[in-house]
């Protein structure tokens, strides 16, 4: 087969990941199954920033871990167009206080991907460490220091330097801003945008913060209880959300400039436990639009009419309402 130029960098098909919960001990009784990912399919194109948004328990972090190989999927396929998936995908974690080994120097922390993948001589590694520290606006001399000597924002820069050193094609950033102060968040967001442009990187940006997603993403996937409920271009999702969950999520996001809140909650209750997801559409118990049929039939992602067909929504009711107004 000839290589298609539109071939995605990473393609994920029908990914399923369940975790069995067991009481402690070898005779521990099974306490059910966490449905972390249920039939998740999407593709990442080279050079784009794809954001995954959703609340806790929606499976966004499990997804990152399955893609990076930290978890094995139960079912489904991950196709990587590049050469070596492990070496070319790097991850940035949420908490820069937990993700850096306190007993290693910054230089050793950053060099680890090179050592693991057996890249470069010690002299070359040293040079790469210095280069990559400078590219995240840290000093060469910082390589001799230890993590405790740095602030949260600087630690996140170190984590980014570690992710960059093996020159990956895809960086998965799992809530890279949420442990940082507001003024530091803008520094890190700027840095992520700068290095992406300079190195032609592809990002999978996982976040619950819609404002930063709207700022950085080209495309957005909204997840709920291990499933994709809506996906599309960043503008379509934010300006024209169709799935009732996406609408509720955008409405619930706190915003400056609208004054004191009017009671506006479109959404009731909390996400069901991924241990026992509801039947039919997983969102139906909280959904203001739900009909009897929503509890029976599981919806599939379908294109929205009147949009370019990349806007997919897993809600036949919202799509039908919308198609009636469009046509």
């Amino acid at each position, binding site marked *: 087969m000839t290589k298609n130029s539109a071939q995605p960098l990473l393609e994920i098909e029908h990914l399923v990941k369940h975790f069995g919960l067991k009481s402690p001990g070898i005779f521990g009784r099974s306490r059910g199954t966490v449905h972390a990912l249920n039939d998740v399919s999407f593709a990442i194109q080279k050079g784009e920033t794809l954001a995954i948004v959703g609340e806790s328990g929606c499976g966004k972090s499990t997804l990152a871990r399955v893609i990076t190989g930290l978890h094995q999927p139960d079912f489904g396929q991950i196709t990587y167009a590049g050469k070596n998936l492990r070496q070319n995908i790097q991850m940035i974690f949420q908490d820069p206080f937990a993700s850096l080994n306190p007993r290693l120097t910054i230089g050793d922390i950053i060099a680890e991907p090179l050592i693991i993948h057996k890249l470069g001589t010690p002299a070359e590694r040293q040079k790469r460490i210095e280069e990559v520290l400078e590219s995240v606006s840290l000093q060469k001399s910082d390589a001799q220091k230890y993590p405790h000597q740095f602030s949260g924002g600087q630690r996140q820069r170190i984590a980014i330097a570690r992710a960059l050193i093996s020159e990956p094609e895809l960086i998965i950033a799992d809530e890279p801003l949420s442990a940082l*102060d507001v*003024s530091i968040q803008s520094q890190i967001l*700027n840095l992520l945008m700068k290095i992406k442009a300079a190195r032609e990187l592809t990002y999978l940006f996982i976040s619950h913060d819609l404002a930063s997603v709207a700022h950085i993403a080209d495309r957005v996937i909204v997840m709920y209880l291990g499933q994709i409920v809506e996906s599309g271009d960043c503008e379509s999702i934010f300006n024209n959300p169709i799935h009732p969950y996406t609408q509720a999520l955008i409405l619930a996001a*706190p915003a400056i400039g609208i004054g004191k809140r009017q009671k506006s909650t479109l959404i009731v209750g*909390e996400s069901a436990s991924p241990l026992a997801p509801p039947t039919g559409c997983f969102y139906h118990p909280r959904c203001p639009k739900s009909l009897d049929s929503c509890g029976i039939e599981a919806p599939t992602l379908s294109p929205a009419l009147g949009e370019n067909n990349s806007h997919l929504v897993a809600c036949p009711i919202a799509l039908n309402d919308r198609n009636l107004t469009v046509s």
Partner: protein
Amino acid sequence: MLNPPLLSVNNLEIAFKLDEGLFRAVSKVSFELEAGKTLGLVGESGSGKSLTALSLLRLIPEPGSITQGEIKFNGEDILKFADKNMRALRGNNISMIFQEPMTALNPVLTIGEQIAEALTIHDKATKRDAQQKAIAMLDRVGIPDAALRALDHPHNLSGGMRQRAMIAMALICKPDILIADEATTALDTTVQAQILDLLIDLQHEFNMAILFISHNLGVVSEIADDVMVMYGGRIMEASPAPLLFDAPQHPYTQVLLSTLPNPALRGQPLTVIEGSVPTRYDLLAGCRFAPRCNRAIEQCMAADISLVDIAPNQRSACINMAGQ
């Protein structure tokens, strides 16, 4: 004669005894709380906002203490209260909800027992009566099957339900002042919206004053009537919420707001605040923000700048403002 304000804090200073000397973590903090109103307190980590909140309950952790100022509740300085009177005040007149309900709740007591405890202590209620009231309050904060949930332990509840239980515990004695310290930060966005709506409802019902502390400017703008911005242990600006967010006066507030992603500037580099907060910010002679301020002039580094009225209800601590 005018009634004294519900709570007025004057020239508060909180200091920690360190080996290298006294660290004045919070100083020159003055503000008032009014019944039925919400005062938002924003600032980044280490700005002194949580210490300011804890001082209202006199719960500053060792080796820190309140070294100056007064905190008047209904006209009486609580810093002069005996410990016994202070205990009567905590939870009864002034109560607090915290960020992480899992660590703030007692894991070995049922939800109902923990909520009822405050009533048996403060109101000398009978156990049975207290339990009934606890269930009614759980119902009020939106916990379904309240009578059954009251028998659960904290680990049986979801994050949002635990936060509701903590609110029920804080409100069971119908306090005059509720302090919410990052009370919605750990929650999911859709649950956060529900808790904010609940707090606004309960405030109307009980006519409480709320001191709402958060680093999330969006959340504060949606719940506060007035907002105070802290940096380096000082108040930089205090204004009615609409004014503060539409027309911020202090350079710190201005630059802090400009760092936020803005849909009109999608994909553009965001404004950043260069540098970082010095660890011993209290040793700076002048304005705490001056070393990072792009409008700083020589006097900013030298003069101790205080908060002054720049317009009715609007205060700012900046030499560039009129009158300084």
